[in-house]
């Protein structure tokens, strides 16, 4: 099953324009990617929720592409489908129609287990809150992510956790449990954790929603810097215009939905 999945993954890569040097199925994660192409490709996506005895279409997207290493902010009012889009991209929820390709993988074709594994290895997810396990220290929260996908927690990994905590300015708080950390510090731990598995894509769902302006700005600055440094793609959902305007590309979710209704590409 997993072998089939890997073969499909390779075919998808080739179809999408990726070229792999020294093709080796058993080491399919170590490709040298030579062409920058779309990391996320969405076509004719429809997501409905069933509420009050009727289907409500919360998300309609004709076409959306996000490139590798791109940093995108998604804006829109509450209930417009921003978070839903992130959950679809991460494979946390299913969609009703259309095609969603992430890292050349057709999410519709993947099983729940494959999506769990794919997410763990390729996507770092940061929420507004409820990011951390309360009973574990900051460092343990970081080490949890690799442990859960059966990575050996060895000295290298522990060093990496220490380095990431240093990069988010929390090396002195590594042994503190979340309730001893401020909200901003908790978000920094969540950022560090999102990156510990060498992922390709960071999804951040209003990570500064509960923070004051300055702290929020600092955290976003820190997050963007780390994404640049590690060549990661960042999709950030925010209500904050100040934050969204600092991004090169801003996607207004309402316009995406309108474009679908009008039958045009966004």
């Amino acid at each position, binding site marked *: 099953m997993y072998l089939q999945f890997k073969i499909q993954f390779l075919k998808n890569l080739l179809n999408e324009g990726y070229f792999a040097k020294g093709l080796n199925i058993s080491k399919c994660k170590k490709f040298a990617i030579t062409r920058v192409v779309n990391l996320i490709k969405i076509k004719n996506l429809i997501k409905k929720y069933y509420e009050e005895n009727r289907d409500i279409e919360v998300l309609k997207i004709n076409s959306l592409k996000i490139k590798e290493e791109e940093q995108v902010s998604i804006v829109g009012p509450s209930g417009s489908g921003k978070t839903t889009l992130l*959950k679809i991209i*991460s494979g*946390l*929820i299913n969609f009703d129609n259309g095609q969603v390709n992430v890292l050349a993988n057709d999410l519709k074709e993947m099983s729940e*287990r494959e999506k*769990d*594994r794919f*997410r*763990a*290895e390729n996507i770092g*997810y940061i929420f507004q809150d*409820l*990011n*951390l*396990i*309360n*009973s*574990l220290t900051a460092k*343990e929260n970081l*080490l*949890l*992510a690799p*442990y*859960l*996908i059966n990575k050996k*927690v060895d000295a290298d990994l522990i060093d990496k956790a220490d380095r990431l905590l240093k990069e988010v300015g929390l090396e002195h708080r590594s042994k503190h*449990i979340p309730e001893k950390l401020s909200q901003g510090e908790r978000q920094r731990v969540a950022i560090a*954790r999102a990156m510990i*598995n060498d992922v390709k894509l960071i999804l951040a769902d209003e990570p500064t929603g509960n923070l004051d302006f300055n702290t929020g700005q600092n955290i976003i600055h820190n997050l963007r810097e780390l994404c640049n440094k590690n060549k990661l793609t960042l999709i950030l959902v925010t209500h904050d215009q100040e934050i969204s305007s600092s991004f090169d590309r801003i996607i207004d979710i309402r316009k995406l939905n309108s474009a679908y209704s009008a039958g045009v590409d966004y």
Partner: protein
Amino acid sequence: MSLLKLIFSNLKYNKFTSIILILAVAVAVTLLTSVASINTGVEEGSLSRLENYEMIVGAQGSPFQLVLSTLYHYETPAGNINYELYEMIKDNPDLNNVVPISLGDNYAGYRIIGTTENYFLKYNGLDNAIKDGKTFKEANEVVIGYNVAEDMELSIGDTFYSIHGFSADDGHIHDDFEFEVTGILEKTNSSDDYYIFANYEAYWLLHDHDHNDDHYSHEHDHDDDHHSHEHDSCDHDHTDDEITAILISSEDIVVLSELKNNIENNQDFQAQAIFVNQVFRQLMNIFGDGTAIANIISYIVLFMAILAIFISLLNSVLARVNELMIYRILGSSRLIIIKIIVLESTIISTIGIIIGSIAGFAISSYVSGIMESTAGISFSIYTWGFINQQIYISGVVLLLTLVVSSISAYNIYRKSPLK
């Protein structure tokens, strides 16, 4: 980082919830253990008292009262029988053992049993049963039970006066007849630990003194001390001397039946002879309703305990849905989440079972002590039967834990709060 590290971190972090859960399981196991142990123990303990004797001869009246007062020392005897009856049957070669019993006095609430060394044949003789000192020879000599010696701090050579009746508080003190402790019994883990044993003739002398002093009339009737024996003679030709009952042991049911007929048909004795097992069974039938109620209560306790464990564990898991969803978002397989929930619940249950078992055994042991001293029913909790019962209870609670935690894990497996 390991699964156990994750589990113990959570148990430590949620100390209060963990303690409440452990207590819920512990209380349930304590209730189950004590109710089951006491139910089984009382029945087994009651039966064990019957093992030594097949027949009791006593004054006419209620057979139940005769069994309860003679074997369990729970009731007051209905009356006395003539000593000659004992003389008549004591040398019957077809009987294994014939033991006279005289009751009616106490010391500090501990009943004084007038008997012979035959009473101690169940311990292969009195010499074998005595820890310190020697057996009673003279009428004023007594051998005391282990707990009497401990509780009253009595030792060899100590003396005391007995009190008329079965209550320590309001009986007449026989201050003209001094008993001397000559022996102390080994611990027998039976009601014998709470008795004082004297020669049955002591009772005659005890009340001779009262007559001679003209201080105390045997015709009087105490309203308050359940006084049972009424000696109306003080001469020692035994013609009118009395004892309370005779315990008889024999495997020959024909001999016993003939003896029963002879005793009950002889109008001179005004006595009854009862088959202990038969009366005990009748007694149990009468108590049948009570036992059924006790069983119903046990089942209610069991149900409540199961419900408490179920709700507590389920709530504990549901309260952590968000946390468990973080595991899923981080890519954890569902198997790991199921392992975390099931292992955590199992650890909580195991600690609860250990605490509950210890508490349950302590309560059973305490109740056993009370039953021994008040009703003559003793049961030991240190037997394979009780251990098996505890293994069964622990197994049921653990199985229940596995079922509940699996249901909770399955719920989380199916229902994601993100969806």
